[in-house]
């Protein structure tokens, strides 16, 4: 177990170095940060001085080495655009994104598993077809369209839920939570639903086909022959054996959701990391972009490690290797 975690940590370091290098290569093509930082009235001389003081005239390798050196000391620099410490900028927004993703995952697990199980066992053909068709819509509707639709219906017409922001939040040291106030819960609902639409459908369809597959397995037939109750077979034996692929998919998706909640965060003005990232790309805020990419890479490694550990719990046949 310990060796496994150690291996993962080593992998993480390798991945971070590669990601950071790729991002520095990419910075050669994203444009000039000076433009967004300096007043129109600044003279050529002032522009050249600023460029020099930021080290933008150095080569890719020199800039990359400097970044890695600072990163090793936990220093990600000062944002060009926000003029404040990059790490604190990201940490300030981390809770917003994590909460949004958490609520979205909970919604998609509850709804997705319920619908999946129901549509696998249900005999009501008409209802089943309707749900299947609706789920196709869920997969194919781009999240910005779904988001705007939700805003128009629930914020503009019905005025039930806020169209933007996190509502009232409660702070605990570094963490800030919107899940403890009514306005915070109301605010998270629309963005979380729009973020979960795709996952709900995927979980539902995956689970349904897995269940149908498992139902045909020999051991289920033997179980039936032995006279084990239908209920126990359906919800204990079959479900437990069908859920493994769902865990894998969720694991892969959560990382993706954290990293790419960008669209949802933009539409709902959710003050999370995605919003920060979009802004950083617009203003060529190199310190923020590189720190963001590195932190997201670390998160992917952590999440995948957790998924591997969860496998162990769900399926005792799998051994740590």
């Amino acid at each position, binding site marked *: 177990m310990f060796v496994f975690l150690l291996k993962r940590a080593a992998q993480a370091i390798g991945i971070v170095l590669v990601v950071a290098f790729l991002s520095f290569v990419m910075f050669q093509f994203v444009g000039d940060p000076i433009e967004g930082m*300096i007043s129109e009235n*600044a003279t050529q001389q002032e522009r050249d001085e600023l460029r020099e003081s930021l080290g933008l005239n150095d080569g890719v390798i020199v800039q990359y080495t400097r970044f890695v050196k600072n990163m090793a000391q936990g220093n990600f620099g000062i944002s060009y655009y926000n003029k404040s410490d990059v790490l604190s900028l990201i940490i300030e927004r981390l809770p917003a994104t994590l909460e949004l993703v958490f609520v979205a995952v909970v919604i998609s697990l509850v709804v997705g598993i319920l619908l999946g199980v129901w549509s696998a066992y249900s005999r009501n053909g008409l209802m089943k077809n309707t749900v299947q068709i609706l789920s196709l819509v869920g997969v194919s509707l781009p999240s910005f369209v779904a988001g705007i639709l939700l805003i128009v219906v629930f914020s503009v017409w019905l005025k039930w839920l806020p169209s933007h922001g996190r509502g009232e939040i409660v702070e605990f040291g570094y963490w800030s939570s919107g899940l403890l106030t009514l306005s915070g819960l109301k605010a998270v609902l629309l963005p979380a639903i729009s973020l979960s639409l795709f996952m709900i459908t995927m979980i539902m369809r995956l689970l349904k086909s897995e269940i149908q597959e498992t139902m045909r397995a020999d051991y289920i037939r033997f179980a039936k022959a032995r006279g084990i109750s239908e209920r126990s077979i359906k919800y204990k034996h079959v479900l437990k054996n069908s859920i493994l692929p769902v865990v894998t998919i969720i694991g892969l998706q959560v990382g993706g959701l954290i990293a790419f909640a960008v669209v949802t965060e933009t539409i709902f003005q959710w003050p999370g990391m995605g919003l920060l990232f979009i802004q950083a790309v617009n203003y060529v805020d190199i310190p923020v972009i590189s720190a963001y990419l590195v932190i997201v890479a670390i998160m992917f490694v952590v999440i995948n490690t957790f998924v591997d550990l969860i496998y162990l719990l769900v399926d005792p046949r799998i051994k740590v290797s």
Partner: protein
Amino acid sequence: MKKLLILAGLLGTCLVNAHAENRVTWTDKADIPTLDPYAFASTQALAFQNHIYEGLVEWDENYKIAPALATSWQQVDEQTIQFTLREGVRFHNGNAFDADDVVASIERVIHKDSGIRGNASSVTGATKISDYEVALTTVPYSPMVLNELTGILMMDLEWMVENGALAPSSMSNGTESYATNNTNGTGPFKLVSRRRDAGMTLVVNDDWWNSADKQHNIDRIDFKPIVSDATRLAGLISGEFSLTTDVPLQDIPRLERQNNIEVMIQPSMRVDFITLNMSDSLIASNTFNENPLQDVRVRQALMHAINRDLIVEKIMRKMTSVSNAYISPLIAGYNAANDIALDYNPEKAKQLLAEAGYPDGFNLAFDCVQGAYLNAEQWCAAVQSFWARVGVNADLNMHTRSTYSVIRDQGKTDIGVLGWANLPLVDAYSITQQLIHSKDGAIFGAFNIPNYKNAIVDEYIEQGVRELDEAKRIGLMESALQLTQQDLPYIPMHYEPVVWVASANLDVPQTSDSVVRLWRAAVK
């Protein structure tokens, strides 16, 4: 305990509501990245900060310099201006405003890490004479000191010392200034809360020095950045927001049909230009080596070929007007007699091209920017097709802002676009220094994209930047602009429109510099 807090909160809201609070919810596309008034040179950031902080002088409704924290001033010699400060002014934390604060502020603004140094280029230092008198030292004979001072907001020395904010954030040292997220100004509103990308709240400063004569009746301003256009518009329509200065043109007809909001449109001071490469060779390849754009007849032909009225009518949806000069008539240095008279006339354009020796036209590289100027991607495409009709083949490429600026600054295109508003100076000083004077790699010509060079024009401009006699100085700028407009290194297209949307019960003066000044607004 928690229940108690909630009760207290509810009680608080009730009490506030009992006052029938006048609230304004101001929304914009982007958050104000930093509240430090010396950190980030953008019109938008300065406009917001100006509600909290004030300068020694300010613009009045007619863009004349008016006293603010200074009551009077006097040019002592060619490089000193003496200011008399307003007495009895207090910062939001109760500290008194005096000469020490001015000296510390000036030192901070010209600090090497200051982000608005370019907006204070004529200021070199300040010394205290008495508690309410300050001598400002400047570049000799600089005419722009007062214009620059409108954008230099005064900070509190004691507060900066207490919080270690004497220097602005430094990217090279990796230090963040306390003033980035905290404020202490003298202005009409004080900051009560700020969460980045979520919103800020300002409340009225009852101890404002100008409270007795104040024009506004606003108690509270909520500033909400909303990145997504659709969400911002939904909030405006549902009445959640009461003011925005950021509206996509295509949504205006829809907004105009709403009864609860008012759409305000006017041309701004910003002139949008097409720039013409006048250096020795073109970027695009042709069968010849010389640059046809060096011939003034060709440049005139290119302007004759564009139907700018049609662009204003169809693409800009009649929300602005064609510009026939390089600066807005509101700006010192404008003279209607010098307007460019090259109307839409494709026949004339073809004839001029033939006279110049290019009857079959030529190829040009054309690079245009998205997101910087309203509908630029559409009017660039229109210009391209107008030129195609007279045989000039421009190869149009669209870029994002940041990649476009690289192409523009390195001169990697023949045709570019640029908008110039002459803000925050409101003076032709800006355009003559930055766009028209030939590049010298130091203080002149940072945006001279065409590589235009005219020795006489340069001479006029150099005289103008060190001329204290206002009438003479304006005469010099007029002459420089007149000659340049004849030479035509830039084709003026139209004024960038300013579009504001406000709820019907908010009376806010719309200005052509597109700066929101809520201390001149009123809730009806």
